[in-house]
Every structure is written in C-alpha cells, then in structure tokens.
C-alpha cells in the first residue's frame, strides 16, 4: 500500500456515502445527494493529494477542512465573495441558511421538504463525517475508529425516521467498513513479514535491491519465512473469524433478551422533549399495528390531572381515519393540516369542564386532552388544533396546561333522528374499508346490524355485539398468526373475525369497519383511559393507553363508542345505551349498565379475566401506540447493570470460581485447600507473593516477613499453616471440624489485618482486579486464540 492509501481512501468515501444515504428517507426529494457526493469526493481527493505531499498527519484534515469549507461556502454564497475570499456577508448568508434549515426541521415531520438551508447543513454535516472517516481510516490508519463517525451518520436517520430502517441501509456501510478493517489489518500484518523491505522503501533513500548484497540476503530470508508468515496469517484469520462468530452470536442473542426499542428512541426527549421537566418524556407512536400482541404493562405516569367533571372522559391524543394494511397511520399531510375546526354546538347544548394537567411527560407535538376541546391554555407554548380531528399539537413539550372541554352527550332520541352525515369533518378515509376484507366486513356488519334501522341503533348493535364476552375474548395475546385459504397472512380484521380475540385496537378497528360498512363515518381515536385516583388527583399511566372508535352523527359530531369489553375500559357512553336518559347534564353521571349489554366482568372467560383484572386495563397499546419513558428507563437500567457487571467482572469471576471450587470440594481437606488458595490469591493481590512450589512453612515465613505481620496475625498464620499441614500430610481423619473452623476464622482475621495495613489504592485494586478472576479470563483468551 502506498502512502496515499488509495484503496482505503476510496473505501472510506464509499462507506461514508453508504452511511448517509438513508437520510434520503427523511426528505421528500433526493437533490441533496449531488452536492453531498461532490463533497465526499472532494474530501477524498484532498486527502489523497495531501498524504502524497506531507508526512505531518494533523495537517491533512486541517487542509481538508479549509478546502471543503471554502468550496461549500463558495457554491452557496459565492456572490458574496470579494477577491475570492469570504466576507462578513458570506457568514450572514450561511447563518440565514442555517436558520432556514432549523425552521424546516422544527416545522415539518418526516419526510420534510428540501430547501437550500437544509441541503447546506446536510452538506456541512456530511463533510465533517467524511473528513473524520478519511482522517481515521486513511491518515491515521485506524479504520476501526472510523466506525464511530459512520455510525453517527447512520444514526441521524435511524433516530429521526418514522419507522425502522431497512436492513440494506445498515448492511452496506457495515460491509464497507469491514472491508476497510480487513484491508488495513492485512496490509499491516503483511508488513510484519516484509518489514525490512517496506521500511527500507519508506523511510530511507532506497537502496538498490539488486546491487545491495545485504538487502538480497534479507529478501532470501524473507522468502524462507514466507511459509511461516502464511501460517501465522491463517491463524490470525481464524482467530478473527472466531471473534466474528462470537460477535454474530451475541448480535442475535442479545436483542432476543433486550426489549425492542422503537426506532425513534434515541432522540426522543433529548431534542424534542427539551421543554419538559427534564425527566424525559413519553413518545407517542402515531402508528397502530393490529397484528402485534401486547406484552407491556408499564406503570410509568404520563401525566397527572384534576378535573371539575364528576365522571371523567378518556384523554385523546390523536385520531386518524387512514387505515392501511393492518395499521392505522397519521399521514404526513394530515399532520401538517392547518385551519379552524368546525364550531361546537352552542353552549346551551353542552356543558364545559376544566381539566388541569401537571407533570405531563408526553413528547411534543402530542398532548393528551379530552374530546372535544374548547380552549387550551399553556404558558408561552405555541399550539395548534387540527381542523378535522381536533388533535391539539404543541410546538415543544409542555409540563403543565389547562384544557376546557365540552361534554356533548346528545340524547338517544336526537341521535336516532340524525340525518345523513354531511360535514367538512368527514373525509373519504372515514368510510374506506380495506379491499381484502370488504366482503367479510359487509357480511359481518349486515348480520350484526340486522333489524336496526337507524345509524344509532346500528352502532349500538355493533357495540353490543363486540362487548358480548360469550363471543369475543379480551386478550393481549393475539395467538398464532392466522392465514387465509391461500396461505397468505390474513388481513388483521379477518384474523380478528376468525380468532375472536384481541385487545382494544382490534375491537375498535372492528367497530369502525362494521360501522363504515353501514355508511356511518368512523375513525380511530388513540389516547389514554381516565387513569386512577391518587389523592385528589388522577394519574394517567402508560398502561392506561387505549384506543376507541369515534362515529360521526350529523348534528352531534364525532362521538365516542366503547366496543372493548372489560371493567376498566369502562361502560359505554350513555347515548349508546338503549333507553338511557341522556343529555349534556347527564354526561357527568356514572352510567349504570343495563339494557343491551351484559355486565362484562362476570362472564369473561378464564384467561381473559385474568388479563382484565391483573393488568388493569385494556392495557396499553404500548408497544404499538407509544414508546415510553420507561423504555429509556429500562435501557438506562440495563446499561447501568451491564456497566456494573463489566466493571466488576473480575471480582465476580473470582467469586464464582471460588464458589465453584468450594462446591466441588468433597472432603474437608479440599475445602481447606480452597480457603488457603483463596488466602494466597488475596495476599498476592495485596502484593505479598508466596514463593512458588515451596513448603507451607517457607510460604508462611515469607508471608510473615514480607507482609510485616504483627504478632497476632503471624500466630494466626502459623495456626493456619499448621492445620493445613496436618490436613495435607497427616491422616485425613485427624483434621477435626473445629480445626477447620478455626482456620476459616484465622484466614478471615488475616485478610482483615493485612488489608488494613495496605494503602487504599492497593486494596481497591485487589478488589476490582483480583488475580483469580484476571487469570481466568487471560487463560480463556489464550485458549480461544490458541485452539484452532
């Protein structure tokens, strides 16, 4: 390899490009790739030239920074240059470009529109990554370190993307990085054998190989050693493959143990949650997947509130009408809708309540509010309301806010008389049924609503049908994947129809689709159950996450239904119960269950009942609905645990080994040997080394003199060696239990006394880095490397 290091430079550039390529999924256009490729090429070219010119390594990245910086400024703000040099105006342009990028990033969700500011910032970021990679991989020849900037570049996308990145985005940069590692390692390894030639060629004005006899001899010797070198190289490779296999195994095994983090986990609460209370925040995934089982029962509080209402409504976070392939999604355009919502019914037909939220941890832009919102007040935080769904969005996370909301519970009579739905609040999505299940849904819906002749009765029939626990089972576990007759994985609604088991998401989705089939506009609302009382406040926890359907009734707007059976998901709203007297004033009263629905809890089947009662609610859509504070908590705890484990791996190893030997000890003699070995090992850690292969008396004398033992400890040491001598060399049955116990006592006192005479640092080292543990790992490593 030449000093310029062509191969590694090109590999580094390719790896950089591969690592930043996934960023294209964050923006709606791919124009940024062209300047980015240009910049990466420029960095590589400058690196190649500079490595040919100079040996001073720090100079190379410095020149790269200057040249690339100049090039970027010139291309974006070239008209402000005077005499080919940037001026103050250039900086102003750069600044405004940066601000533009900042605004774009803050305003738009992924995929964001691409503009000059964003491209400018992207190019700068990529240039920095490229320079880092080039410097580490080629200039300093440690491509292993170059993995870090590459990973950073990759994580930009991974952390900001909407969903998990495809595997190929990871495979390609990693493969390139591994090739870099391989190339460098091979080149360096190759130099061991041919050091003479390589060094001579590099460091000195080269001797002519043909004429210099000494050089020739050297070459011959190298030729003779070539076979040996090849052998060494082979063993080197085998060792590397072995380590690689271990890494691969770990990579497969560890994720099986650690819970799966949602893709946006890394930046949640760091960038976006800065307005919170510094405790991190609850991210809320906008997507609901019907095919996933739930296994999360996270009790982390999301928010605390007080309310003026007698009964409490669920707190809605968002609503969506768009269903696709088993998932409820909030589309990009839906997230950026602006405008004013339709006016609420006049205040005579509704009753307003106030809800004060404290300690909100939900990540921006989401907050949880009851539906429908009349007014929101939060100090100094900009917020907006979605004109159609009335979702409230905030600019940054907000800890405390006050919401005024309306209770618009119409009477059943009103609802029965509601006309054909016709409102700007209704979109085409609100009536869309997935093609794959269309026939099934229509058949199912007609069957359920047979006999009902208005929208309300149909809706109530659907709700009662779904709440019937003799038909449907509430379960967080969806059971095995259902396949249709052609062997494809069944559409989730169809799967629910087949298995008749699910949790709130399945029940809500079923109700929505069944209602849509009857021409009732319906959409999915996601949020939290009212939570549990704690003193005079209510606490909403992550496990309170819930999903329910909203159906549109002309004149009354979107109304909540509750098709999910179970005690905590609560009784259905009053207007959905046949014969209930209802109205705005009645909305505050607890609803007694009667009429059309059976008391759910008593008839719930065995396993479902357990779920309902022990995991209090329709527990959380968590893993689907939201990614949660606790995910970070779990990760931190795990990291701390792993860190602690790693820090104390040696003492733990030593302890495990000792316990294993102790258990393996069959006789009292063995046990005494273990104790003695433990003592000598501990004394060795404290710097008192007994002569190897000596008699006990010699060891004892060494300990006493080297350890400067006082008289008490010395006599304890003598007792120990005498007992041990007896145990080793006298008839086995002569060593009494009392003697063994005394030996243990003496050993403890010796450890204590000797430890007290050592310096603090030696004691810490002897604890953290005990020879017994270290030698185990050392021998293990040696064995692994040697065996082949």
């Amino acid at each position: 390899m030449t000093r310029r290091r062509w191969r590694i430079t090109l590999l580094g550039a390719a790896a950089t490009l591969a690592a930043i390529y996934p960023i294209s999924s964050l923006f709606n256009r791919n124009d940024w790739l062209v300047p980015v490729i240009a910049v990466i090429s420029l960095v590589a070219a400058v690196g190649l030239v500079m490595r040919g010119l100079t040996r001073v390594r720090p100079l190379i990245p410095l020149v790269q920074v200057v040249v690339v910086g100049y090039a970027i400024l010139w291309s974006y703000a070239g008209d402000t240059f005077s005499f080919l040099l940037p001026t103050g105006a250039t900086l102003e342009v750069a600044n405004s470009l940066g601000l533009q990028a900042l605004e774009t990033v803050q305003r738009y969700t992924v995929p964001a529109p691409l503009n000059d500011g964003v491209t400018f910032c992207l190019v700068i970021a990529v240039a920095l990554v490229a320079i880092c990679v080039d410097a580490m991989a080629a200039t300093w020849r440690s491509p292993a370190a170059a993995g870090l900037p590459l990973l950073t570049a990759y994580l930009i996308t991974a952390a900001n993307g909407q969903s998990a990145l495809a595997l190929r985005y990871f495979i390609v940069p990693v493969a390139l990085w591994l090739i870099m590692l391989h190339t460098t390692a091979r080149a360096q390894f190759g130099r061991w054998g041919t050091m003479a030639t390589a060094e001579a060629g590099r460091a000195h004005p080269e001797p002519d190989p043909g004429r210099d006899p000494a050089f020739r001899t050297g070459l011959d010797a190298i030729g003779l050693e070539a076979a040996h070198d090849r052998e060494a190289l082979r063993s080197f490779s085998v060792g590397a493959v072995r380590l690689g296999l271990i890494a691969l195994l770990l990579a497969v095994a560890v994720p099986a143990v650690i819970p799966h983090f949602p893709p946006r986990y890394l930046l949640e609460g760091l960038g976006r949650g800065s307005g919170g209370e510094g405790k991190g925040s609850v991210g809320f995934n906008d997507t609901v997947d019907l095919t996933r089982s739930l296994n999360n029962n996270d009790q982390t509080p999301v928010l605390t509130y007080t309310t003026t209402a007698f009964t409490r409504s669920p707190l809605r976070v968002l609503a969506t009408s768009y269903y696709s392939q088993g998932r409820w999604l909030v589309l990009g355009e839906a997230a950026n809708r602006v405008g004013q919502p339709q006016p609420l019914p006049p205040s005579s037909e509704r009753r307003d309540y106030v809800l004060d939220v404290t300690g909100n941890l939900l990540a921006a832009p989401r907050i949880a509010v009851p539906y429908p919102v009349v007014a929101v007040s939060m100090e100094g935080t900009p917020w907006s309301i979605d004109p159609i769904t009335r979702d409230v969005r905030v600019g940054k996370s907000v800890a405390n806010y006050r919401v005024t909301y309306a209770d618009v519970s119409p009477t059943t009579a009103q609802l029965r008389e509601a006309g054909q739905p016709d409102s700007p609040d209704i979109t085409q999505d609100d009536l869309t049924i997935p093609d794959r299940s269309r026939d099934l849904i229509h058949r199912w819906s007609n069957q359920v609503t047979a006999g009902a002749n208005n929208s309300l009765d149909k809706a109530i029939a659907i709700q009662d049908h779904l709440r019937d626990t003799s038909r449907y089972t509430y379960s967080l576990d969806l059971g095995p994947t259902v396949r249709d007759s052609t062997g494809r994985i069944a559409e989730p609604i169809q799967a629910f129809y087949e298995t008749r088991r699910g949790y709130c998401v399945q029940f809500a989705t079923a109700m929505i689709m069944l209602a849509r089939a009857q021409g009732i506009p319906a959409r999915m609302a996601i949020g939290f159950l009212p939570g549990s009382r704690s003193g005079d406040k209510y606490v909403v926890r992550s496990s309170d996450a819930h999903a329910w359907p909203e159906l549109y009734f002309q004149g009354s707007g979107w109304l909540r239904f509750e098709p999910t059976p179970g005690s905590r998901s609560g009784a259905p709203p009053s207007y959905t119960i046949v014969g209930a007297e209802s109205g705005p004033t009645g909305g505050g009263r607890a609803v007694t269950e009667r009429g059309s629905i059976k008391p759910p809890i008593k008839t719930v089947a065995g396993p479902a009942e357990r779920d309902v009662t022990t995991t209090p609610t329709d527990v959380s859509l968590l893993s689907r609905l939201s990614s949660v504070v606790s995910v970070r908590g779990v990760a931190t705890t795990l990291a701390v645990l792993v860190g602690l484990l790693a820090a104390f791996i040696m003492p733990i190893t030593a302890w495990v080994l000792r316990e294993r030997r102790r258990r393996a000890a069959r006789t009292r003699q063995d046990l005494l040997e273990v104790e003695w070995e433990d003592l000598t090992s501990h004394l060795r850690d404290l710097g008192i080394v007994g002569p190897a292969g000596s008699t006990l008396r010699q060891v004892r004398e060494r300990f006493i003199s080297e350890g400067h033992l006082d008289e008490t400890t010395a006599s304890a040491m003598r007792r120990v060696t005498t007992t041990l001598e007896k145990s080793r060399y006298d008839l086995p049955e002569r060593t009494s239990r009392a003697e063994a116990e005394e030996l243990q006592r003496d050993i403890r006192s010796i450890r204590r006394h000797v430890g007290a005479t050592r310096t603090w640092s030696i004691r810490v080292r002897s604890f953290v880095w005990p020879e017994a543990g270290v030698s185990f790992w050392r021998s293990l490593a040696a064995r692994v490397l040697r065996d082949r």
Partner: protein
Amino acid sequence: MSVTTMETGLDAAGVDGTADLDLVHEVADRLVTAMSSVIEGKADVVRTTVTVLFAGGHLLIEDVPGVGKTMLAKALARSIDATVRRIQFTPDLLPSDVTGVSIFNQDARRFEFRPGAIFANVVVGDEINRASPKTQSAMLESMEEHQVTVDGTTYPLQSPFIVMATQNPIEMEGTYPLPEAQRDRFMARISMGYPSARAELDLLESHGARSPLEDLVPVTDAATINRVVQAVTHVHASPAVRQYIVDLVTRSRTTTALRLGASPRAALHLLRASRAHAALEGRDHVIPDDVQALASAVLSHRLMPSSETQLARRTTAEVVTDLLRQVPVPPAAR
C-alpha cells in the same frame, strides 16, 4: 501415635503410639545432649547422626583429617550401651578381619567361626577409603544384608546395627574411593566442617587435660534403640509426601546437571530418614520440610555430577539444593 493398621502389626493403640513418639523424642534428646558435650558447636551434624541412627541407616562421615569424624562416631558409640567395635581400615586389612574367619580347632577337630569386627551394634569404620576395594566390599555387603556368610554358613548380625564410616575426601593420597554402588548403601553422608573459632577455642581448653569421651556414659541401650527404630517406621508418610520424594529422585535422573541420578534405594532411604526426622520433631507424620531437611545429606553422595557441573565447580549438594527449588511441593497449585 495412633498407628494405621496398614503399616503395623505391632500395636494399634493411640496411647502406645504416643508413648513411642515420646520415647523417640526423649532418647533423641538424651543422645543429642550427650554427644553435644563431646562434639561442640555441631548441633546439626549431631542431629543428623541421631536421625540416621533412628532411621536404621548407616552413616558416612566425610571430611579432611582432624575435624572430629572419629570423635563423632565414638561419641555415638559410647552414648549407647551396646557392643561397639572399631575397625581401622588400612590397605592391608583383609576381608576376613572384618567379617570373621573359620579356624580349625585342633581339640574339637572342627572349624570354628571367629566373628570379625563387624559383629557389634555399632561399628565404627575409620578411614574406610584406605582399605582395599575387596575389604570395602566385604563390609558393605554385610551392611546391606545385616548378615555375614563365611564358608557357606550365614551368621546374622546384631540389632541394632549401624555402621559409621569415616573417610577422607578422595583427593587425598593413598585412598581407594568407594564405588558408587557402595556409597549407595550409606543412608546419609555428612561433613563435619571446621568448627567455629569459638568452638575451636573451647575445644583446645577442654581437650587439654583429657578426652571428654572418657566422661561420656551410655544414655540408652540397644533394646531402646530397637524400639525407637521400630516406632519411627510407623510415622505416617502421606501420598503427597511420597509423591514429592518420587518427584525429587525422578528429577535427579532427568536433570542435565547430573550424570547419575538417585536410585530407588535412595528414595527409600530418603523416606526412612524423613520419617525419623519427623519423629525427632515430635510429629507423627512426615511433611515436605522433613524431606527437604535431609535431601542433601541423603542424596548428594549418591549422585554423579555431569561434566558441566564439574566444570562449573559445583558440588552435588548444590545440585540437590537446586532440585529442591525446582520441584514443586505437592499438592501443587491446581
């Protein structure tokens, strides 16, 4: 000492065993005290002598003339109430002088056996390397077998039977160095070494008037020594210690520092001597320290240094010290 039934048919009672050990200790004390009054400033030599006596072995005392070799032998002989014979080896000494001879009795008209000098409990062989090899071997054979065969008749020797031979270093003139095979018969070889200046001064003073040997009275008798020797054989040698001895002699055979290593007999002698050493210390079991204490005395006269060792002017005793350093003491670290 509670003796394992495996090792003895004599007694198995703990009380008797302890009594035996006490007896060993007591006899050793008395002997050492008595001998030390004659051999001044040589406590370790005296102790080794007593150890070899208790182990039932023979002792080779090697040193330059005049340092008290004979005095040591005589002191031991006198301390025991037993038959003592002394043989002054000279080049013209005949084998029959040692073993005895059959003489024709005219009156009885038959041959009669006249026992030689070796028929005694303690035989002091002075300057054994001055005798002809023929005579040397005649004595050395009887040492091993504890019996003498003359004209086809076998005569058992007395018990206890200890030969204490002195010899001058082989470089001295007019000597026939003992062959290796014969040196092997001695359990231990000790060197007297010159006395310290202080001890020498005392010696001049006390030996001025008359020999202190004359004041020496027996402190024990042959029967007691027999019991002591018997008791010593019951000292417990654990497998670990036996393994250590085997390791040591094995290493002596493989080390490049030696041309000839230790024989199996050497291992046997080392174990017996170690047992005696343990008993002298009042212990009823052998520990590796016992082995180490006697290894040099028991092994070094049997070993033949390799030419490298000779060139380096190192003695076999030094080689044995090296061996002790190299061979790990069992149980070795697991």
